[in-house]
């Protein structure tokens, strides 16, 4: 771990990896639909109404 932290590029890369893990966990743990999902759903409904 200290070898990663001694290198600035590796530290930033580790930060990006943690971000991806956090985003995955956020997606798994969220129970309510997210704003993005609600927007997608609203878009689909609009398209259905137009057809």
């Amino acid at each position, binding site marked *: 771990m200290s070898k990663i932290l001694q290198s*600035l590029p590796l530290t930033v890369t580790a930060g990006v990896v943690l*971000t991806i893990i*956090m985003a995955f966990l956020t*997606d798994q743990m969220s129970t309510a639909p997210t704003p993005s999902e609600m927007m997608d759903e609203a878009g689909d409904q609009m398209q259905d109404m137009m057809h």
Partner: protein
Amino acid sequence: MEQFIVFFIRYLHVVSGVMWIGLLWYFNFVQIPSMPKIPDEQKPAIGKVIAPAALFWFRWGAASTVLFGLILAWQNGYLVDALILKEPAIGFGMWLGLIMAFNVWFIIWPNQKIALGLVEANADAKPKAARLAMLTSRVNTMLSVPMLFSMVSYQNNFY
């Protein structure tokens, strides 16, 4: 009026956060990598003048970011849900920010005081303290990447 207060607290949270993370990145992207290139006779300018001043704004920037962030979360009604990770999109970011602020006040600052000679310590303690402060500062740089992602994505409803 209530909406303005929420906005203003968010503004103070962001201003404090820029001060904190800006100085964190200054230490890690500029000061630490530049130290080996600075001639020995000029190093006291960093150790005695610039670093203590930067550390003052750094640690108080961290404290005020956390204070305004907690007030903001309370005003918006998600403080508890975020802390128990019922609202993980912002909860992860809040916990990362809290861990980082803890590191600043309870690991980095006490060890920097020893490393910079601001408190009495024996000669052996200085390099150890400097190394621990540097590695903890690097941990904070690493955590700042997901922390900022969480903050910005939640504010922009992109999660």
